[in-house]
């Protein structure tokens, strides 16, 4: 086995702890629950699937799940000090970072992409989408956006957990304040928000799926952000100083 897959396996096992996985599955189930509630509530009529999936999945569940997995992938080892065993071995720091990001992103995507598709199809099944929109294409476009977003968020939050010991809180602040409040007050700030990239990618694939202000340039922005987060994480891990706990 290569070093990469070795680290990936260990991380995967560490992340799939009982309680955390259960909580994350609960979170992933919430969009499906919304889909069921909307159906149960159902006054048939045009429903904007994009807006509902955006409201619950892209704005809330995706950042939250990615945040927990992203900051725990490397952050929990750094926090309890066992990361020393990894850092003192002759392994390239970029290999460690890449393995952590891959596992955190894959785990996030594995939970949320099916959840997006099921929730979307539940919404699309009974209630018709806006005229001129193919609901299935719309759902899958958003699901692909969520897939890319999972890796991008995971990369950013892994980097954050290396830069600061309170990565979880800073990440929440980013998701709630920057993407939440400031995006409304300063629309320009959305060019620097993962949420907007997710929407942009969905819009690129199926133009009627969702509205976004960055559009297809989201692909470029997202690639830059992904590379930047990985590079910053590797560089910061290279100069990481082992500290005690709180």
């Amino acid at each position, binding site marked *: 086995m290569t070093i990469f897959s070795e680290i990936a396996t260990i991380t995967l096992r560490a992340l799939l702890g009982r309680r*955390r996985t259960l909580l994350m599955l609960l979170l992933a189930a919430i969009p499906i629950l919304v889909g069921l*509630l909307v159906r149960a509530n159902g006054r048939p009529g045009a429903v904007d699937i994009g807006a509902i999936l955006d*409201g619950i999945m892209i704005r*809330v569940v995706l950042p939250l799940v990615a945040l927990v997995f992203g900051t*725990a992938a490397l952050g929990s080892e750094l926090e309890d000090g066992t990361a020393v065993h990894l850092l003192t071995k002759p392994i390239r720091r970029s290999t460690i970072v890449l393995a952590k990001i891959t596992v955190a992103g894959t785990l996030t995507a594995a939970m949320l992409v099916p959840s997006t598709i099921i929730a979307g199809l539940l919404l699309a099944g009974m209630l018709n989408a806006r005229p001129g929109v193919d609901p299935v294409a719309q759902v899958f476009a958003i699901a692909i956006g969520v897939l890319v977003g999972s890796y991008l968020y995971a990369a950013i939050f892994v980097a954050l957990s290396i830069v600061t010991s309170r990565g979880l809180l800073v990440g929440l602040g980013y998701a709630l304040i920057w993407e939440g409040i400031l995006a409304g007050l300063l629309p320009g700030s959305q060019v620097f928000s993962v949420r907007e990239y997710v929407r942009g990618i969905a819009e690129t694939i199926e133009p009627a799926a969702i509205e976004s202000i960055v559009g297809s340039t989201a692909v470029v922005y997202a690639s830059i952000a992904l590379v930047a987060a990985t590079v910053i994480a590797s560089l910061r891990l290279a100069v990481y100083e082992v500290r005690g706990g709180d």
Partner: protein
Amino acid sequence: MSEPVTAATSAGATGSIYDIGYRRYEGTRLGRGHAARSLFVHSLRSSYGIGRGGRAKIAPIILGVMALIPAVGIVAALTLFAQFGAGREFDEQVPIRYDTYAGTISTIVILFCAAQAPELFGRDQRHGVLALYFARALRRSDYALARIGGFIAALLILELLPQVILFLGRVLLTSDIPEAVADDLPSVGPVLAQSALAAGLLGGLSMVVSAFTPRRAYAVAGIIALFTIPNVVAGIVVGLGSSTIGTWLTLVSPTSILDGTNAFLFDTRLDSDFFFVDLPGIAFVGAALVGIGGSIAITLRRFARIAT
């Protein structure tokens, strides 16, 4: 601790115990009330990182400052516009007023809860020091109540301080201070009531989560999930048309409850399409009080049973 250290000297065949002069505590014992009060003050102080290291101060101070920014900004803007003689017109249109302030900073208050509530309950459990608290005059219920009380008091400061700045700014901007005070006086009651309900509900619920979740990371994520997800779900369901499910969802979502009490207390209309639920405003106040009482009761129960 309380066993008398007697000068026991027994001349047995195998050995003897000598009184080597340890002294017992002779001073006044301040008792249960004092212990509870001290813990309350300690909780209040550590909510803002006072008495703790610099790293523990970063998050509460940043969030505290962010909660003040809208108030300071609006007072600054009012001053600026008053210089141009347009103070009155601007004053009537500012989006940040007494009745909208709680909603404006609600995200920051939620982040403050997520950052600080786990510090109060989580650290004691992680470091296994609960037994030391319970060995004192403090009862288990006192411990829980003092911690919750301290945190709610901290949140109350977070909610009220910006309002005080807003009030002072508005009053001092005018030349006729008594009239300005009289103008703003009717808002004082609702501001106090809304701040108390918000601090109680958000503080109580986040303390419940952190009492059951010693690990900080999970507690933080749990608090955020509890405060944001029901609100979004309720928003989506209610947005599709009023219905029984939507009404109930609104009453279990902490942030929608607080939006409701705010509208009720300030007698404003909820303008978002979120609220055409047909509920009397008092129902939201009831839901908030049930939430506060319930969360305190659950926390008390948790600490009555926790193994130390």
